[in-house]
């Protein structure tokens, strides 16, 4: 019975730290998935990516059960293990069992893929992150779709992983959750001593990655979107002066040229007003509408891509793209005192006069 008390170290400190930190960061990323909290969401993502890279390196430098060499099972072995587990006679493993090994490999792959897709998405859509300015809006939006698919797949794998840990704990009467916290397991016949880790490598890797991730997260939270080649300052004065007499000078890239022509035409009903523009002034405005600045932004691409070729929307808020992006907002977001109406972009978008529509510059008042 003396052997029952013998405990053996299975999981080293980096394995446990990475495990629980990634778990918390994934939870944090889930809770900050709203676009307005993209700063925190991205910081969590950078952390996950950095820890994944560390974990891969640790898979070669760590102690016995941290090493990939210790859990490189064939898919057949994993399936055989699952079959045995369903019959209630899966063998107990000191380190990772074959199914667990595969779930960890898949999780690491998912984490890499989800964070990389996220980096492409925020670069294309919000011009933020390390790839800002190098990704076009459509690719950014496609990457966001993949980011979501992979995130859901990852949540499913996490569910299997947690269920497996609980089932295995019950089947073998050892608390795997507690082991992942303490690093210890009760030793059984045949369990052998751990392999020593390369401590120097561990410390250097961890410091480098943690420092890099923290520095980058800080940098990302500081930086605004990269200045666009054509932002508010470049919105032509004629456009700004004419439009902003009565309302926000909507960036012309937010509607197709034919819509602007319909709104500027002589005698057109401009929402109940006759603009009665002088010939020269109207010509100037129409030329500006024909070559809108900032058309490369995600907001402009999103809206223009959503307008059917045979439609001539007169309101930006009537476009499918605008509606999709604002669908989740409560109706009171568009009424006083929060805003003067759906047309009042600047009530929430600090950067409305440009065409950036950076989610970090959205200020919802009552939500």
């Amino acid at each position, binding site marked *: 019975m003396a052997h029952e008390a013998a405990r053996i170290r299975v999981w080293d400190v980096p394995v446990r730290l990475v495990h629980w930190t990634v778990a918390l960061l994934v939870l944090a990323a889930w809770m900050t998935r709203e676009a307005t909290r993209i700063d925190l969401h991205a910081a969590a993502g950078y952390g996950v990516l950095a820890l994944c890279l560390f974990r891969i390196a640790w898979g070669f430098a760590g102690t016995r059960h941290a090493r990939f060499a210790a859990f490189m099972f064939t898919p057949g072995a994993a399936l055989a293990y699952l079959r045995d587990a369903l019959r209630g006679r899966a063998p107990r493993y000191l380190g990772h069992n074959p199914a667990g090994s595969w779930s960890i490999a898949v999780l690491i792959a998912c984490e890499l893929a989800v964070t990389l897709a996220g980096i492409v998405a925020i670069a294309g859509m919000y011009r933020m992150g390390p790839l800002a300015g190098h990704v076009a809006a459509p690719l950014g939006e496609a990457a966001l779709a993949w980011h979501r698919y992979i995130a859901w797949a990852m949540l499913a794998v996490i569910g299997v992983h947690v269920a497996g840990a609980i089932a295995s704990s019950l089947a073998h009467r050892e608390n795997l959750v507690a082991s992942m916290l303490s690093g210890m397991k009760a030793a059984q016949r045949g369990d052998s001593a751990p392999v020593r880790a390369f401590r120097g490598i561990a410390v250097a890797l961890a410091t480098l990655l943690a420092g890099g991730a923290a520095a980058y997260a800080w940098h990302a939270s500081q930086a605004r979107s990269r200045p666009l080649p054509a932002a508010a300052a470049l919105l032509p004065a004629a456009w700004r002066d004419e439009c*902003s007499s*009565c*309302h*926000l000078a909507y960036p012309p890239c937010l509607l197709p040229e034919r819509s602007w022509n319909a709104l500027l035409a002589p005698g057109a009903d401009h*929402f*109940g*007003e*006759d*603009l*009665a523009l*002088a010939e020269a002034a109207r010509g100037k405005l129409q030329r500006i509408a024909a070559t809108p600045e900032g058309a490369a932004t995600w907001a402009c691409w999103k809206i223009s891509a959503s307008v059917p070729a045979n439609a001539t929307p007169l309101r930006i808020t009537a476009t499918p793209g605008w509606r999709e992006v604002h669908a989740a907002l409560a109706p009171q977001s568009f009424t*006083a005192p929060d805003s*003067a*109406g759906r*047309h*009042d972009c600047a009530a929430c978008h600090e950067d409305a006069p440009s065409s950036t529509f950076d989610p970090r510059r959205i200020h919802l008042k009552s939500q």
Partner: protein
Amino acid sequence: MMIRPPPFRLAAFAVLAALGTSSCFASAVDDLLQRYRTQGAGAFDAAVGAAQWDRATPNAAGGEARRCSLCHSTNLRAVGKHATTGKRIEPMAPAANPARLTDAEKIEKWLLRNCKWTWGRECTPQEKGNFLVMMRAQ
């Protein structure tokens, strides 16, 4: 009807422009008043202009009756608010907003657009002149 000789007007304009004072608006308004007189207007009256400012026209669309003060406030030195968009409108009185009444083309453009919206028709030269002398006196 007094018509100043052109050389004097040019000199006065040059001096005022050089000074860059708010007196510049006098020139733009005076030019317009002159134009309205040639279009048949008589003497302009600030009190009539004030009455025009408050004159309400029923809104065919069913909303609040339209009047100048709907957007520009009854106090011309106060900030106004666009009736549809809610956008802030700077004060109309030159005393509160020196940029007002300095550009004849701009004045004409807005009198045309806003008379049509508020009263459903263009204003007569007489009415426009009454507005201008009333506003200038604020």
